[in-house]
Every structure is written in structure tokens, then in C-alpha cells.
């Protein structure tokens, strides 16, 4: 069986001529279906660039990315947009909810774009809202709810289409610790109960400890990879802190 996500020698260079800056170089890894993978690294290491490239929002300079059995390398802008719509889900640090829509409508949006019939949309939205515990908030507007609730809404929006792959970019970055824990637990549940494949970028060791596997990036290159295996979350958290200390520059990020 092939992996869900295959990344082959991906590199990303910005600028032209003598003024080039290499954000990513020679990155190769795979993600299997049903995995919960974290990506960590110090600021400026290229975490977000990697996620953007994988999420087809940005294009790699070299190398190839395959999701499912689709090779994304030579796809055009419009095709990529359609691919995102049908296969990927996103959770962003700043939620990216649309202010002019209610919580319900925000969750409806990707389904509406995918032309799902209104009857089915109702069912799916109610189901996902229940999973994330926001059923009571469906008719409120984003400015009427808290940050944690916004991130649950954003997560519901990302997951309602049952995407093959979910990308989360610092999803807990703007949340207080209680909301962050709630969200991470929801994601972790979803990963286990529904075999959802999640890839999460974070610089927070606590958030990362919910993952099963963590890739560390340093200066645009993969430096290490650790597995949670049979460890408890606390043990895994300690291991992450050790790795961060060893690659340096991590201490600041932890606190």
C-alpha cells in the first residue's frame, strides 16, 4: 500500500540571482493514513513554508509531492484549488473565519462550494458541530464567540468535508491553555475514532505531545524524527523538550 502523503526532495528557494534564500531543501518523508504528525522547529526553520507547500497554497521550487495517488507537481492554479476543495482541510492560527457568516454558514461553506445538496449539508454540519461541542453556537457570528470557540468552528469547517488530509498551522497559537487542551483532545479523538490524518505545525511542545510522530526541522532541513510509541503523553512531552534543547533555540519557544 502506498502512503497517503509522499514528499520527495522538496526544496523552496525565494528570490532571484545572487539574492536567494533557501527556505527548504531536500525534504523527504511520508505520512500514512490515520497518522497524527507534528512538525516542530525554531522560528524561521521553514515549518510554515513546508506546510504551505504541502497544502498547495505555495509551490515548491524542486522535488515532488504526491497526495493519495495524485502528483501535485505539474498542476495548475485552478486545478490545485479544486484539489484543495476535494481533499484537504485547513486549520489556521488566526482561525480565518468569515465575519459576515454565522458559525453554521462558515461550516457550510466548503460543502456548498463542493456542491453538496442542502439536505445532506444540514446533517453533516449538525454532526460535526456536536463532535466539537459547538451545537449551541451555530447561529452566532464569529465576533460573538471566544477564541477557543472560533478555533472549534474553524476545525469543524476543515473537517466537515471529511478530507483525506488535515493541515493545522499553529492551531493553538492564539488560545489559552484550557481551550488549547480541549481542541487538541478533540483532534486527537477524531484521529483515533475516525482515522483522520492530521499534520500539525507547532512550536509548542505541549501541543506536539498529542501527536504520534514528530518531525523536527532546522534551517530548512529535516533534522530528527521521534515516535511516541507506547509512551504516555507526559513521557513524550519530556522527550520532545529534550530534543528541542539539543537542537538549540528551542528553550525560548517552549516558554
Amino acid at each position, binding site marked *: 500500500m502506498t502512503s497517503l502523503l509522499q514528499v520527495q526532495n522538496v526544496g523552496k528557494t525565494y528570490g532571484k540571482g545572487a539574492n536567494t534564500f533557501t527556505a527548504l531543501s531536500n525534504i523527504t518523508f511520508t505520512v500514512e493514513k490515520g497518522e497524527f504528525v507534528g512538525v516542530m522547529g525554531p522560528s524561521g526553520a521553514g515549518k510554515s513554508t513546508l506546510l504551505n507547500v504541502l*497544502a498547495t*497554497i505555495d509551490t515548491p521550487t524542486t522535488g515532488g509531492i504526491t497526495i493519495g495517488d495524485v502528483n501535485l507537481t505539474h498542476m495548475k*492554479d*485552478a486545478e490545485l*484549488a*479544486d*484539489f*484543495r*476543495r*476535494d481533499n*484537504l482541510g*485547513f486549520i*489556521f492560527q488566526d482561525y*480565518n473565519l*468569515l*465575519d*459576515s*457568516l454565522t458559525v453554521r*454558514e462558515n461550516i*457550510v*461553506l*466548503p*460543502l*456548498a*462550494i463542493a*456542491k453538496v445538496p*442542502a439536505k445532506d*449539508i*444540514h446533517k453533516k454540519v449538525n454532526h460535526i458541530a456536536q463532535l466539537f461541542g459547538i451545537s449551541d453556537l451555530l447561529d452566532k*457570528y*464569529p*465576533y*460573538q464567540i471566544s477564541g477557543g470557540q472560533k478555533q472549534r468552528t474553524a476545525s469543524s*469547517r476543515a473537517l466537515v468535508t471529511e478530507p483525506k488530509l488535515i493541515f493545522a498551522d499553529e492551531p493553538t497559537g492564539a488560545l489559552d491553555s484550557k481551550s488549547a487542551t480541549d481542541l487538541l483532545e478533540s483532534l486527537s479523538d477524531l484521529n483515533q475514532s475516525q482515522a483522520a490524518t492530521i499534520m500539525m505545525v507547532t512550536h509548542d511542545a505541549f501541543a506536539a505531545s498529542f501527536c504520534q510522530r514528530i518531525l523536527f526541522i532546522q534551517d530548512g532541513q529535516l533534522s530528527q524524527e521521534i515516535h511516541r510509541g507506547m509512551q504516555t503523553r507526559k513521557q513524550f512531552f519530556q522527550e520532545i523538550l529534550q530534543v528541542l534543547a539539543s537542537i538549540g533555540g528551542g528553550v525560548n519557544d517552549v516558554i
Partner: protein
Amino acid sequence: MTLFSLARKNIQRNLSNYFLYIASMVFSIVIYFTFVTLKYSDTQGSSKQIQGLMSGSSVVLLFFIVIFMAYSNSFFMKKRKKEVALYSLLGVRKQKIGFMLFFENIVIGLLSLGLGIGLGFFVSQGLFMILVRLMGNEVVTQLTFSMQALMNTAGIFAVLFLLTSLQGYRVIYQFKLIDLFHAEKQGEQIPRASIVSVIFGVALLAFGYYTSAADIFTSNIWRFFTALGTPLVVIAMTIAGTYLLFHSVSVFVLTTLKKATAWSWKGLNLIGVSQLLYRIRANAKSLSIIAILSATTITAGGGVFGVYYNAETTVRQMLPNTFMWKGEAVSFSQVDVLYNESLAVKNLRVDNEHAFFEYTLLKESDYNRLAKWQGKDEQLHVAEGSAIVLDATYDERFSHDFTGENFKLANGDAFHVDKMYTDSVLNFQPAGTVLVVNDDEFATTDAEAVTMQVVGLNDDLKQKAVSKEIYQQLSSEQQDSFSSVPQSYEESLAMVGSLLFVGSFLGLVFLAATGSIIYFKVLTEAEEDQAKYAILNKIGVNSKQILKTVAGQVAVIFSAPLLIGIVHSTFALIALSQLLNMNITKPVIIWMLIYSAIYAIYYVVTVRSFYKIVRQETKS
């Protein structure tokens, strides 16, 4: 580096950003300068009414330009808030920034003033030519550069630039640094429509429309408010109704649409509807103003164009013969003559208690001959004791319909009126209302015998020279009775032509300005919406779909005021055509099409710029 040079460099570097602003300034100046040049030009010394018209219109124009400049200036300032914030962050004092912007505005002002006046001079030459043509003059005169117009324009715009500069100053002082960096992030309130104002708005418009379409002379509403009061009442109600339409009815309709999930939960309909929900409510005032302005422009332009279009028909209706006068024949150049003859008619005088009326009695055989020359097919055979009445001024609402009645003469005789025609074979001047009887009856009727000359020429509209030639040979009494198609046509063109010119000129300016106002507004909003479309792109909406929803939203914003303006003016023109007793459907439709076509150009340009702005964000 002095502030002045910083300001100057600013302009040089961001010329493309400034282009739109400068262009709208130059546009305003060109329009105004052209107008005052025409106003001050004494080349058309004779036409006092045109100058009066021009003076009145230039006030309207000025009022309009002030609004327009305020709009474009605030748009421009909004665009530059970030730049101002940056200076402020770097520690430049507000006072200095204000000073810099002030300088900048002055530089832009001087630049636009120079450009505008230069361009305006050429434009006024061209427009003057058109004006002369529209008034039916063939002689083309040159306009001289008017110092008076220059002083007037420069003075007024200096004041305006000073005001807009102060407006800029105010913006700097009012905003806090934090506001300058962040566009308002507070949640916008969800607009809700109160059912009362929805019903009230619809009722106001319905009443206004009903009243305009009602017969002015029989409707009770018109009687109640009087002929002068009713239009004012209708206009007031329509304006209030229009505002409520944009403020509440639109929200009501859009909310209903949004609730119909079978439709709204399909593709980007949800986005389109909720964006519009905010936009239309927030812009209710501007959209109403634009709708009313469009309505005014279309009504005024359509009405004037209708009258102009009908000028020839009106003249021909009243004057079926090229020339006609009472008295003896005169000799004139015999080119293009179709017919030229003396008619023996009789002058009937009918007295009643208050006044007397004069009618012209015409022989049946003369009628038939003239009718044939004038291209009418029908030949009359009037029975003994009967008459047929020809009344070119007949209007069913005011005139007396003689059909079937006995027409009593002063001496006790009477004719039975068989039929009435509204087109005569004799010019209303000098013949008035005509009674056609058979030749025997004519001979026996006792009335004052009169000789009238009727002349028909080919190409009659261009026979001004012949008209003068004849006129000069007539005695002053005969001159009073003289009527001439080319002369009447020229007079009505001179009047209506200048009206048409001013009307279409102002109409064009209004159109350009309303179009630009929507353009500015929509683009300001596009900048606020950039982030939204970036999100949409991230969750998998391709560019084609974004273009589609953008085009749809902008289409609603553009077409709503236009459609309402057209409907308003349709009803206003129904009332007007009733008042003038004229069929102006065709010219009005032509006018509306031209108006909509220019509007459509604005639409396309706006959608393109909107899309560009939105895509900028997602590309980066």
C-alpha cells in the same frame, strides 16, 4: 530633505496610485472650466436664455463637483492611511505629516488645475461646435480663451483644494496610530430589516408611481395636492421610498434569499448574499443618492431629448405648408417650389357671452388639392349643410369636441359637424381652426372674404433664405400673419437644442461622477475584503469562481440604483409626456440605452479592478 521635497517625491514615485485621484480632479476642472467658458463667451450674444440656463446649471454643477471631490479625496486618503501610519510610527509628528499632505495636495491641485484648464480649453471648443450644431446653426465660430472663466475656475478650485487639504489634515488628527494600522476589526452588526419600514418603503414608492401614472387632469390625488404640489409630494415620497428600499427592503430580500438554503447553500451564493447584505445597508445613503441622480438625469435628458426629437413633428403638425400668410402674393426665388397659390377663404367670427372666436372657412376643392400636395391620401366629400373641423391644437382634455354638434354662426346659420381632424391643411398661423364645407355652401355663406397665400417647398427646413426674402416684402400687418416652417424650426431648435446640450452635458457629468463614486466605493470595500477572498482561495475556491462571485456582487451594486433610476424616470416621463401631450417613447428608450451602456463600461472596469485587488492578496 525638506517636507516639500518629500511630498514631491511621494507623488513622483506613486504616480500610478495618484493617477486616479489626479484624473478625477482634472475631470472636474475640465468640466467646470468648459462650462464657465461657454457661459462667459459672448459669441452667442443673442441668446440670453442660454446664458441664464448656463448660470443656473453651473451652480448645480459646482454642487455636484464638491460632492464628487469629497468622495474621491476620502477614497484617496483611505488608500494612504498605512503610509501615514508608517511616518507616524517612525516618529514624524502629526503636525508635520499633516503639513506634508497639505503640500502634496497643493501640488496635485496646481498640477490638475493647469492640466484641467489646458484640456478644458480644447474640450470647450469641441463642445461649442456641438452646441452650435444642435441649435441648428451652420456658421461655426471660434471661442476665445476667456480670462474671466480662468479666474472663476482657478478661484473656485483653489477654495475646494484648500477644503480637501483641510479634510486630509482632519483625518490625520482624528485617527490614532493603532486605528491607522488596523482596519476596523470589530464585528460588523448584522443588518436586520424591520417589517414596518419594508411595508412603508414599498407603499411610498407605490403611491408615487401610481400618482405619476394617473391622469393629471382627472385624478383625485392631483386635484387634492394641486398641479404644483403633487410633483413635490411625489418626489419627496419617491426619495424617502428609495432610501427605505435600499435600507430595509434590500435587507429583507437578501435575508429571505439567505434563508432559502436550497439556493444559498450552493457554491458561493452564500458569500455573495452575505457580502451584499452588509454592503447595501452600509451604502444605503450613497446608493439612494445615485438612484435619485440617475433618475433625475434620465428624466431630464429623456424629456429634453424627446422634445428635441419631436421638434420637427411639432412644427409640421402646426404648419403643414412651408410658408403661409394673409394677403397678396409676392415674388421670390422659384427654386424647389412644389406649389404656390392664393386661396380664397372666409373668416368666420363666432361670438358668445365672454369672447369671440375666429375660424377659417375652406372650400372642399381647395382642401382636396392641398391634401394631395401635402401627401395626404384622403379626399373629402362634405354633404350639404355639414362641415368638417380641422384643429391642429386639439387636445382631448381641454378642447371642445364638435363632432355631431351643430356649429352655429353669428347670423343664425348652422353647420352639422360630421368629423373632426387633428391635422390641418392650413398653417395654424394665420388660419387657426378650419371648417371645411363643400364649394356651394362656401359660396353662399355670408362672411368676410380673405385671401391667403400657401407655399410649399421641397427641402423646406433649409429654406431660411427664401423665408427671409418673402418676409421682407410683406407689410407689417402681413408679417404678423406670416408663418414659416424653417423659421419656426430654427427657433424651436435654438431653444430646445441649448436645453438638450446643457441637459446631456450635465447628464454625462452626473453619469461619470455617479459611476466613479460607485467605483471608488466598491474598490475601497475590495481592499477590506482582500483577506476574505484569500481565505476562500485557501479552502479551495478557484479564481474563476471568485471572479464569478465578484462580478455578481458588483453587478447588484451597480444595477440596483440604475434599475431603480430607470423605473423612477419611466414614471416621471409618463407624467411629463402627458403634460406635453407628446409621444416620447422612442427618444426616451434611446436615451436610457445610451445611459445604461456608459454605465456598463464602468461596471466592467470596476469588476476588473476589484478582481485584481482580490487576487493580489492570494498570489502573494
